[in-house]
């Protein structure tokens, strides 16, 4: 099989580049594209996209190249399918109004700027539209991958990035539908048809999928088949309706986007997606040739728009909505790349002859660089923030003395505060989430809204006269910062792992909450009870169940 040698080259090169990148913690996508450039350079794979192929003529590509293209197309289908699968409207809701406003403004401004830049560069209107799409939308795959820990730890800027990314995915899909319509009236038809397809998907999700899952009876094989049927069915539907294939893929993912089934499907189809999408991105890279001056110009403009102007606008908008500088900047920085949806748009547009080779090349090149840059800015985000942040106005100090400062009003923080209140302690809460600060104030407690890394926040909380600081923030950076404060002597901070805790203890923490260690003490107590006492089990269950319910109701 000739395809074997092609695949071997692809995976070996990809692995080599990935290994190199791994040291710098770069995301996988640019690695594949670069691997593709290498592969393309070695084998001259690139020329197989010839003009004849574009004009629908009989091409002379080999069987291997044909098979490769098929695999790459499957890559697109599976990639967008997983977008649909992960699309959870609930996560969208969490910072909905903030994100929606921000995204609208940012996409609009950046989009318009880019459009004009495009026309200045000599692109047609469609090309400029594609150009501005590439700048305005940010990459879910890369952006979310980089933000994983934050989202996991429920930090505010993580949630904001996530919902902005999701909204942008939707915008991207809409744009794809419109761009591939052949005329204005057709655009309306396409939008309408596309919306109907999405509604169909949502209906199937509500009413169809549970039935299917039950019939599958936990067989991963059957679930996978069901997922594939959905994929191919939806793609068939959209092809019939003359809509772009990616709409079908996304809709297919949407039909199964019900938790927990989507996780099962992700587990099984995930490997398929990895396999095919790797091939896709490598193929993309293989299509890049040595850039001309014009390509470099266009790419640089795109890069500037994406990596500098877009974050700046996002930052300003978030600040305008009342968020603190740090959250705003960290959120903005997580959005400074080109979206892989843009890459998909670009290759499909290129193959459909809607855009020129020039635009195609510049988007891919700029896209790759923006992703690399993005991981760099992520790793150094704190430093960047420190360099760029504005001066903070000093607010009035709170009037508490000998108080306990609690940092973070989350699950842990709330329970700690509950206990402290019972002991009549004086409490001040520092938080950077405006909603939580309102909740704090509603409870009648002193709340300080600000960035923990700013000394002004601590001054406002009158830290020099406090008795104790307790931090529930799961970030080493934050814990270290707190320990650097001169006062008070007693500080309790948080770490996720024992070795981090040990470091913090060395730096002067009076005590470190390692949730897993602390919890285990209690858990062991419970287990002892379970072993020695017959009724303990039922009592424990009832008590815990009630606690959980109470907590849910009080929210």
């Amino acid at each position: 099989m000739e395809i074997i040698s092609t695949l071997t080259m692809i995976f070996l090169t990809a692995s080599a580049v990935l290994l190199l990148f791994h040291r710098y913690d770069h995301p996988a996508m640019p690695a594949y594209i670069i691997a593709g450039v290498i592969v393309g350079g070695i084998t001259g794979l690139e020329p197989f996209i010839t003009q004849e192929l574009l004009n629908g003529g009989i091409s002379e590509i080999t069987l291997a190249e044909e098979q490769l293209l098929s695999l790459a197309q499957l890559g697109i289908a599976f990639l967008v399918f997983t977008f649909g699968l992960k699309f959870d409207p609930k996560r969208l809701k969490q910072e909905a109004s903030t994100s929606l406003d921000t995204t609208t403004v940012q996409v609009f401004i950046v989009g318009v700027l880019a459009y004009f830049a495009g026309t200045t560069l000599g692109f047609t209107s469609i090309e400029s539209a594609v150009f501005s799409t590439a700048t305005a939308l940010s990459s879910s795959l890369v952006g979310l991958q980089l933000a994983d820990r934050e989202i996991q730890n429920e930090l505010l800027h993580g949630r904001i990035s996530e919902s902005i990314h999701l909204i942008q995915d939707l915008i991207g899909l809409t744009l794809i539908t419109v761009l591939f319509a052949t005329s204005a009236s057709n655009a309306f038809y396409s939008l309408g048809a596309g919306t109907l397809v999405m509604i169909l998907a949502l209906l199937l999700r509500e009413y169809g999928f549970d039935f299917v899952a039950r019939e599958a009876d936990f067989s991963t094989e059957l679930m996978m088949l069901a997922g594939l049927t959905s994929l191919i069915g939806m793609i068939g539907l959209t092809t019939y309706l003359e809509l772009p294939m990616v709409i079908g893929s996304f809709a297919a993912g949407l039909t199964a986007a019900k938790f927990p089934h989507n996780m099962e499907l992700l587990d099984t189809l995930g490997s398929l997606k990895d396999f095919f999408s790797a091939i896709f991105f490598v193929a993309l890279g293989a299509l890049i040739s040595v850039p001309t001056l014009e390509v470099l110009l266009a790419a640089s403009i795109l890069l500037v728009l994406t990596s500098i102007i877009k974050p700046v606008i996002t930052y300003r908008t978030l600040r305008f909505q009342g968020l603190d500088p740090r959250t705003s900047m960290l959120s903005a920085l997580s959005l400074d790349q080109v979206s892989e949806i843009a890459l998909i748009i670009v290759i499909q547009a290129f193959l459909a002859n809607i855009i020129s080779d020039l635009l195609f090349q510049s988007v891919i090149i700029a896209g790759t660089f923006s992703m690399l840059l993005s991981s760099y800015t992520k790793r150094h985000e704190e430093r960047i923030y420190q360099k760029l942040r504005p001066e903070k106005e000093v607010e009035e100090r709170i009037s508490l003395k000998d108080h306990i400062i609690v940092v973070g009003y989350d699950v842990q923080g709330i329970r700690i505060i509950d206990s402290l209140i019972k002991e009549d302690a004086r409490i001040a809460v520092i938080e950077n989430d405006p909603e939580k600060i309102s909740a704090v104030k509603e409870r009648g407690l002193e709340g300080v809204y600000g960035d923990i890394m700013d000394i002004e926040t601590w001054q406002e909380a009158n830290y020099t006269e406090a008795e104790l600081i307790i931090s529930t923030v799961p970030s080493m950076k934050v814990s270290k910062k707190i320990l650097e404060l001169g006062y008070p002597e007693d500080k309790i901070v948080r770490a996720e792992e024992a070795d981090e805790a040990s470091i913090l203890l060395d730096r002067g923490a009076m005590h470190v909450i390692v949730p897993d260690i602390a919890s285990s003490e209690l858990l062991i107590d419970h287990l002892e009870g379970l072993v020695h006492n017959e009724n303990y089990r039922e009592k424990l269950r009832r008590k815990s169940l009630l606690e959980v319910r109470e907590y849910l109701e009080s929210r």
Partner: protein
Amino acid sequence: MIEVFTADLALIIITATLLAFLARKTGQPTIVAYIATGLILGPGSSLISETEVTQLFSELGLVFLLFLIGLEMELEEIEDILRPVTMIGAIQMALFFGLGAGISVLLGFNMVESLFTGSAVMFSSTALVVKLLTDKDQISDMPGRLDVGILLVQDVAVVVIMALISSGLGNPAEIVFRFFEVLLLISLISTISILLSRKGLSRVLGKVSDNQHTLLIFGLAWAFLFISAAELLNISTEIGAFVAGVGLAQVPYSHEVQERVRPMTDLFMAIFFINFGLSIVPEHLTAYIFEAFILGSILVPVKAIAYFYLIKHQGYGLETSFLGGLNMTQTSEFSLILATLGISTGIIGESLLGFIGLIALITMGASSYLIQYNEKLFEKFRPYIKKIVSENINDLAENSRTGHVVIVGYDELARNTVDELEKFFDQIAVVDRNPENVEELRGLDHEYIYGDIRHGEVKKSASIDKADIVISFVPKFNLNKQILRMCSEESTRIVKAENFEEASELYEMDAHYVIVKNMLSGDRLGEQLKVYLEDRELFHQEVTEEKKKIEWRSRTWK
């Protein structure tokens, strides 16, 4: 533009899905559904023939399957069955070759055709047996291991025969030379694979082991390397994949790679069987229906019986021998490949392909059901067998245990808890699938099972359904729901949740206690703070214990 998503492909997938669901509902093996899909859409209605995509996938399917099998071959584990399976494999092949050829002569075929048929039917189907046994969670039981071993011996033989046929049947000296050449090359790349993996691969994989995605790509790169090498050396790609798998199996991270490759293999194999059905040409089928049925109906029981005696002769028990034999009654998909090869080199005619293909269909169909109900059949036949043969060995050591604790997942919380648990329980089994914990867990006293609790073999090994206490430290909602379903009524069930909504639902599903990530530690600190506010000295005393634990943990953990 290259059309991947053709109507043909859609039809194939939709039909396959419907039939597979139907098969599941009526208790049939899904392989039958796939072959049926191919038959219905192909010869049945001449709707479609193999598409390019299906061709590609089914070729990849066999390759990936052998990679996966190779991944399971941890050398220490196969050492004990190496001798028996080689003996059984060799004898069995000679036996069925003779049987197949002999009956063909009796049925009226000429010498060349009969010899060819003999060599085609002497194999059993790796794809079918591995798939069905894995589905039934019997792949790691003794019969399963023996069968896989025998199948691998056969695979080596297939390679050799294919090499012989494709280089044309010249004079005997050439054949012998080629035979040894192939054998040598296989040993050569196997050694390279194992050496390379021991020296370089484990370090490389270690660096990327935390990223599932990258691990898969690396695994695939490794596999393709050997696949290409095999192609260059003119040995079959499947053997290359197998050798790659074996090399990788010696490295701890092989399990992760296995897990990632498995779904791909499932899909490709499904298409393989569909393709198998599609590739049957109707006219060829009808040429020798009668003869095929005769040979087929003889082969199935004779294979079962022969294997039974062969395995038993090597010293295994009744149940192992019976099951081991029953699983192997079919002929292999390789018979079709051999036949195709034979046609292209002019040794046999096209109608013989139909004959061999029909035998494959018949025996595969029949054996799918035999495998599906293998244990029940054993129960039925046991009294009769006992009368004929004496039983003196029971080697299916049932991993039965009761009164024990099963722990799923091994995080920091688990680490601390397990230590204490040892004071109250002797039998603790830890099930964990994180490769980073492998070394630590292997070094501890209690039982350690590497894998995903949802996988059949792991589930069985841990006997989770007979456990007294089950604790899941993995905060994955879906997983914990499944775990709760696996537990018995009387067991004590403790699981972990990310948030209160999940906790509430898990309580609904009869969890006894749900660890909500930050709730416990917040409670604990709350208690400690009470002490802090009242008696500073006492607080420091209490906290010192915990701090000591932290220090100890941080030192031992790295």
